[in-house]
């Protein structure tokens, strides 16, 4: 084998290997999308009975599924908003000020990142049961904000690492007060970190199964509805909704990504 052909063979095998990994990653999604067009009407909805678009039409009649989806969006929006506000202000505060017990708070921030989610789920369940907070959308929001805050803080903190304090001082010297300075100077500089943190928080909240599973009470989120239906066989309208969501998120991210590129060029 010559050197060139050896190199070529190496290149081909790398491409093949990467393709196999991508097939592995996308295979179950392909199964979901294909099954959303499956004309079968008998449980467990696995045998292919021909192509139909019916599931996309009947999806709108499955009120329980749509309600759970609405819950998930509401939950993710509220948790992201709260976690982003608390996390951003907290990250700036922890960067600027030293206070007693700071290392404890710092340590606690890592808990949701490293501890298995099930431990966080059951610990919050025990808390809510002991202080008699009825489980529902409120406890779901409290739980989601809890595991989202650290990810917002880490994103904002990464942005703060290269932050120049003198700009703020200049703003205050020129007569702006603390609050104006925060909104006019600090926030714009941190915006990409805040945006990244919020996006991550939203993604984590939407996909969360384990923590929600313990604190939801009677409120069903979309993942919990899916979990419930897996026991009886996932009906193709769940696949249809998932396929629509996939298309939606890809479109959303492509749109926001191209925006980021444009801003970068200005």
């Amino acid at each position, binding site marked *: 084998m010559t050197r060139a052909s050896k190199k070529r063979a190496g290149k081909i095998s790398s491409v093949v290997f990467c393709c196999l990994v991508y097939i592995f990653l996308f295979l179950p999604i392909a199964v979901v999308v294909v099954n959303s067009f499956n004309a079968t009407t008998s449980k467990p909805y696995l045998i292919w009975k021909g192509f139909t678009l019916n599931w996309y039409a009947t999806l709108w009649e499955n009120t329980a599924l749509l309600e759970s989806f609405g819950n998930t969006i509401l939950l993710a929006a509220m948790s992201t908003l709260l976690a982003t506000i608390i996390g951003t202000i907290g990250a700036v505060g922890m960067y600027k000020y030293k206070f007693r017990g700071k290392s404890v*708070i710092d340590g606690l921030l*890592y808990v949701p990142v490293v501890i298995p989610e099930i431990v966080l789920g059951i610990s919050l369940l025990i808390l809510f049961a002991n202080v008699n907070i009825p489980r529902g959308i409120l406890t779901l929001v409290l739980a989601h904000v809890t595991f989202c*805050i650290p990810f917002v803080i880490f994103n904002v903190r990464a942005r703060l690492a290269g932050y120049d304090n003198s700009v703020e001082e200049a703003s205050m010297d020129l007569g702006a007060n603390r609050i104006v300075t925060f909104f006019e100077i600090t926030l714009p500089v941190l915006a990409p970190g805040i945006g990244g943190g919020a996006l991550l928080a939203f*993604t984590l909240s939407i996909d969360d199964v384990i923590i929600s599973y313990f604190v939801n009470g009677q409120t069903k989120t979309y993942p919990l509805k899916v979990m419930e239906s897996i026991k009886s066989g996932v009906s193709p309208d769940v696949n249809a909704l998932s396929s629509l969501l996939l298309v939606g998120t890809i479109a959303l991210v492509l749109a926001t990504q191209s925006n980021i590129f444009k801003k970068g060029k200005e």
Partner: protein
Amino acid sequence: MAKGKSKHKWRANTLPALIMVGPVSFWMLIFIAVPLIYVFVMSFCSLDEYYNVTYKFTLSNYRRLIDIDYLKIYGQSLLIALLTTFFCILVAYPFSYLIARTKSKKKNLLYMLVIIPFWTNSLIRIYGWRTFLGTSGWLNTILHFFHILKEPVDFLFNKGATVLGMVYCLFPFMVLPLYTAIEKLDTSLLEASSDLGARKGATFWEIVLPLTSSGIFSGSIMVFIPTLGYFFVSDILGGGNADLIGNLIERQFQSGNNWPLGAALSIILIVVTLILVKIYQKMGGDMDSLGV
């Protein structure tokens, strides 16, 4: 005068610090620290005859932890988590290396393609695997079509299927730190190594691997620990034949309704996490690279 000065200091420093750091500190204490203390206390509580939790001190929950059936499940969890971590490294390392060092203009796209599947709900994707691997699934149909199989085989409900599902779920958590570590690698070091006569294999073992080991460590932490708790993966793909500590805990808080025992089982997970994180820090691991 002195009073005026301290008032000024309070307004200038203490008040803004309190407003900014107060909410996050309060939230972390109430919703992380207090619940964990509750778990600890709960693990020493007893059940009365109606299966209600009573605050009567007992060690019986901890005694039950060394039940032989439970010991088997700890062993099984350990095995599944180790296999998951091993296969994640095995696939993710060369994969991350290839996409991090490609000269292709589509590098960002290649990277995004790893993330995109994870925007679909993880349960749905795991269910997709179940559909694929089941007796009437795609895999059986394909193998039957090519006459490799005469009778359908059930690939589901065993440890193998569970490990597959875990690797699938946690793969990006291995790719992200590896990708970051490999991208930072200084190419001139590789050139220097080969200029000095080192073979490719030697360059890899002596230069590339040590310089990217931080990625392997953080990835392993991010894969190994969650595996122990991902009860839904072993529920859906393992069908009760590949239970993890997570499944044991889940049952105590749902159908089993024995919260004190569930709390004691959770203490195992907390201790394992603490030990692994300590080892990780001892080996020079950076906590911030665990933050995704």
